[in-house]
């Protein structure tokens, strides 16, 4: 179909984002409505494209008419399509959630939606692009607007958080750029498929340096252990829906870039072991820090890091089961963390209630939001019958497949810690006497709608995971099938 061209994923939000202030001049409510229309359209086309995708035949768009490996191309395959669909779906929900945010004291929706749309465009770009420099550009786009979104609120310490994020983000961009530079120097091409073909001939020493640079640079974006200092600050200082989209989109695009680079582009021996170790360290440090958090959002942020670590571990097995589990975890993390951040957005809206301690008895005064938070917490720690369980189960099965019993034990031990801190919050929300002066911001109808949709997805997938397992399997096969990817991007190339 003409209208469902993947280019729209990037072009449309980029365009409308900058036009948004103009629309605002014409008719003020358009500021709220236009992004919604865009996101809805994006979600529609992504679903449409994804559901109509022929297996083994990804949609490849050549920008400006140049065929790969010379031109930039967009690849909408089972894997990237899945992530894009997820991102657009979440973006739409985030819009639904924040459409009426003004009602509870959220101003500046113009800037907000502009930045949000740009960020979404960037993340989609990262996922879709088939060009490694293009990926860098999109990562930077995403990052810059994320800085803006992080620093969105004026009263808080958001500038501090944004600055830290910016500092690390810039370093990340330097390393990625350096890696691309070295890669380009070696292979003379920027197309990922082409690099993948030619990468075999690179000097292994150089290759490992490139891999290290990519690892560090993308690791910052993917919230890897020693480089994730920005995450808790950014997540906790950004507005609720922004934190949700960070977890749902930003982190996803980061991890996507990481696994795309190491699965498809660069085949480096040992990087997966490194990823495993770093993933485990990420999990351990993040979850242990989360355990001792007093602020709800910071806790969620650390938990988010932990989940990312889990995803890294899953992808580090380099097996089909591992990828499948990783994808499942990504899906879960995107959906559930979004729900958690969205609900915590209302719970911690007032500056008075930032700490977990302040939320005693909120189950009674904010029943729906608390319920959603509780549901999210149940799901994220992997309790059945919610979707988190299946992710965890698949993850563990994959781990066992790789004979890594100690990893299972470690993951499960950390999961106990996770349970502890989430259930502490639930206990406080529901089974405590509430404090005297609390400021309640009841969710608006659209927020309720957004959260309900997420909850329904969580429960639906939890009860019947086969709703998504087919797609995940397809995506797995796509990611695992490196030759297939190269072949579909570069149809004329004959391997060997």
């Amino acid at each position, binding site marked *: 179909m003409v209208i469902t061209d993947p280019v729209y994923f990037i072009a449309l939000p980029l365009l409308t984002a900058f036009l948004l202030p103009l629309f605002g001049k014409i008719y003020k409510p358009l500021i709220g409505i236009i992004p919604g229309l865009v996101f809805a359209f994006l979600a529609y086309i992504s679903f449409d494209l994804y559901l109509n995708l022929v297996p083994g035949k990804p949609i490849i768009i050549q920008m400006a008419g140049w065929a790969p490996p010379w031109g930039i191309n967009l690849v909408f395959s089972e894997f990237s399509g899945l992530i894009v669909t997820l991102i657009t779906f979440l973006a739409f929900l985030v819009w639904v959630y924040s459409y009426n945010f003004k009602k509870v004291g959220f101003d500046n929706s113009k800037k907000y939606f502009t930045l949000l749309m740009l960020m979404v465009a960037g993340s989609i770009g990262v996922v879709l692009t088939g060009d490694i*420099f293009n990926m860098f*550009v999109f990562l*930077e786009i995403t*990052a*810059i607007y994320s*800085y*803006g979104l992080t*620093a969105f609120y*004026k009263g808080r*310490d958001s*500038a*501090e*958080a*944004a*600055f*830290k994020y*910016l*500092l690390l*983000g*810039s*370093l990340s*961009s*330097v390393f990625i*750029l*350096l890696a*691309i*530079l070295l890669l*380009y*120097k070696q292979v*003379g091409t*920027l197309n990922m498929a082409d690099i993948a073909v030619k990468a075999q001939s690179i000097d292994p020493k150089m290759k490992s340096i490139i891999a290290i640079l990519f690892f560090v640079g993308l690791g910052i974006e993917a919230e890897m252990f020693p480089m994730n200092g920005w995450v*808790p*600050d950014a997540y*906790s*200082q950004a507005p609720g829906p922004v934190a949700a989209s960070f977890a749902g989109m930003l982190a996803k695009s980061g991890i996507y870039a990481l696994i795309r680079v190491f699965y498809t582009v660069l085949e480096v021996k040992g990087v997966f072991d490194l990823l495993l170790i770093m993933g485990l360290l990420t999990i351990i440090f993040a979850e242990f*820090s989360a355990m*001792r958090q007093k602020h709800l959002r*910071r806790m969620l942020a650390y938990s988010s890091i932990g989940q990312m670590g889990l995803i890294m571990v899953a992808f580090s097995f380099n097996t089909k089961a591992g990828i499948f589990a990783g994808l499942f975890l990504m899906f879960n993390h995107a959906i559930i963390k979004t729900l958690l951040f969205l609900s915590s957005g209302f719970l911690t809206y007032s500056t008075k209630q930032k700490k977990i301690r302040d939320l005693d008895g909120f189950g009674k005064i904010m029943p729906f939001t608390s319920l959603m938070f509780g549901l999210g917490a149940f799901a994220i720690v992997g309790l059945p019958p919610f979707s988190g369980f299946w992710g965890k189960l698949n993850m563990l099965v994959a781990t066992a497949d790789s004979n890594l019993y100690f990893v299972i034990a470690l993951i499960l031990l950390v999961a106990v810690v996770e349970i502890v801190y989430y259930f502490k919050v639930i206990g406080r929300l529901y089974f405590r006497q509430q404090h005297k002066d609390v400021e309640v911001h009841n969710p608006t109808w659209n927020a309720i709608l957004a959260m309900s949709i997420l909850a329904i997805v969580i429960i639906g997938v939890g009860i019947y995971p086969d709703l998504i397992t087919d797609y995940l399997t397809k995506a797995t096969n796509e990611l695992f099938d490196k030759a297939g990817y190269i072949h579909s991007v570069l149809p004329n190339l004959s391997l060997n």
Partner: protein
Amino acid sequence: MQEFLTYSIYGTAFFLMLLGLYAVLMKKNLVKIVIGLTVLDSGLNLLFVAVGYISGGTAPIFSPAVVGKHVIMTDPVPQALVLTAIVIGFGVTAVALALVVRLYRKHNTTNIDEIKNLKW
């Protein structure tokens, strides 16, 4: 001579990068850190251009002057990339400076060690 030039450019680039990195890691002033970032970026960009340069190459422009002649052109791709990178670096610097201003207003200092409201 040509080689020396090439290596000196590489050297300058790495020097600039290290200088920038030093500023980012060691300087306590926010503005200096931002400057360090910019220097780091510049070094990187220089490196990029240097990598793309082929000795004796001309500008990669198909002008009437070069049509039909056997001319060595420098690789155009890194130059294009550098342009993008510069733009991105500019954007980042702008955001960074804006943030520095806000941080200064809030904390009344530009010492990064004192801006630690968010920790652990």
